[in-house]
């Protein structure tokens, strides 16, 4: 078959039909993958919640609420309950102060605001340095470990800023941002519960201080 001439009609028709076919293929693929993508996202969130909280028997994703941490900012809190009793929450928190881009984590706190566990959902920190936060703050070495700490005692800070946590070697900025995200989660949880006015056994001391922060 000979090559089509570059006449206006030919050009118009060929581009039009290519776009039409491409659009149709994309619509089909999108329709086909919509379900699986949603399920996998939901599953990912559920797994993260399960990993950072104690055992629960409610569905945190359905009972989630937005907790304010200041005038303009709020975080999503997933309360977890066992036999109708509040046993803690998973809080989706973030920080924009990382080395590159947003850091999103999910933090598990029990009802006494003790840090149970965390999972890093998304980050763009330097591989080999900042991205070590995935496990660094869980390691039992020097003052790295933050698991089990009671957050109401005050903000977590890296030792360079006069705090008690060892920062990741050569990635102090990432460490700072990470701890900021943890602190924000605490603020949201302790402040958010009283804001929502739910009758749950919520941490009340330190609440006023926390809501005033920032």
């Amino acid at each position, binding site marked *: *078959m*000979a*090559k*089509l*001439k*570059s*006449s206006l009609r*030919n*050009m118009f028709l*060929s*581009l039009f039909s*290519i*776009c039409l076919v*491409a659009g149709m*293929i*994309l619509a089909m*693929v*999108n329709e086909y*993958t919509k379900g*699986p*993508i949603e399920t*996998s*996202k939901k599953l*990912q969130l559920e797994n993260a919640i399960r990993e950072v909280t104690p055992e629960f028997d409610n569905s945190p994703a359905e009972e989630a609420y937005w907790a304010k941490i200041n005038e303009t900012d709020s975080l999503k809190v997933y309360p977890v309950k066992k036999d109708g009793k509040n046993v803690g929450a998973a809080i989706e928190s973030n920080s924009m102060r990382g080395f590159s881009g947003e850091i999103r984590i999910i933090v598990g706190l029990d009802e006494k605001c003790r840090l149970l566990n965390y999972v890093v959902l*998304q980050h*763009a920190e*330097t*591989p*080999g*340095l900042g991205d070590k936060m995935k496990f660094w703050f869980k390691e039992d070495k020097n003052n790295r470990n933050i698991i089990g700490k009671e957050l109401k005692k005050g903000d977590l800070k890296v030792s360079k800023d006069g705090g008690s946590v060892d920062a990741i*070697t*050569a990635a102090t900025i990432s460490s700072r941002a990470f701890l900021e995200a943890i602190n924000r989660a605490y603020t949201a949880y302790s402040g958010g519960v009283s804001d929502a006015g739910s009758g749950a056994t919520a941490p009340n001391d330190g609440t006023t201080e926390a809501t005033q922060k920032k």
Partner: protein
Amino acid sequence: MNNNLKILTNGIIKENPIFVLLLGMCPTLGTTSSALNGMAMGLATTFVLVCSNMTVSSVKNLIPDQVRIPAYIVLIATFVTVVQLLMEAFIPALYSSLGLFIPLIVVNCIVLGRAEAFAAKNKVFPSMFDGIGIGLGFTFALTLLGTCREFLGTGKMFSQTIYPENFGSLIFVLAPGAFIVLGFLIAIINKIRSYK
């Protein structure tokens, strides 16, 4: 068949997109901070390259010359989006580490370059082999670059520790290190090629 084999090796050695043609530098420098990232990016590009080469060569006569570039870009972007959606749906673990780079394949000049330079002038089968060859060459180069940077920067190879991390030098993981390692690799490859 012999001819096809030649096309295949041509992309890997003689016309290696990174070390010889110096094409597609943006994903090369951006994604090779570790060997695994480089390899995954290379393989994703290979898939898109093969698909786009085959499609372009089979519809080349239906596309008038003056609109060929927009037409190719629409075709390539379609394949990239398909790859992205399928990956997000069925391999979420891989998507979470690579998802950011996938849309970059559209603007990767290797893909457009091969469509224009090879697929638009050849039949479907040679185009497929060209896509595989160039794609493997790209993957090889990215993996090599990633391995060197990971090794020099963090003391690891494919996430396996070779020497303690404290002795690694930070610069190789960051962007400047990518330029330095790439420069030395190109110098070495040119030296080897000049002996032939």
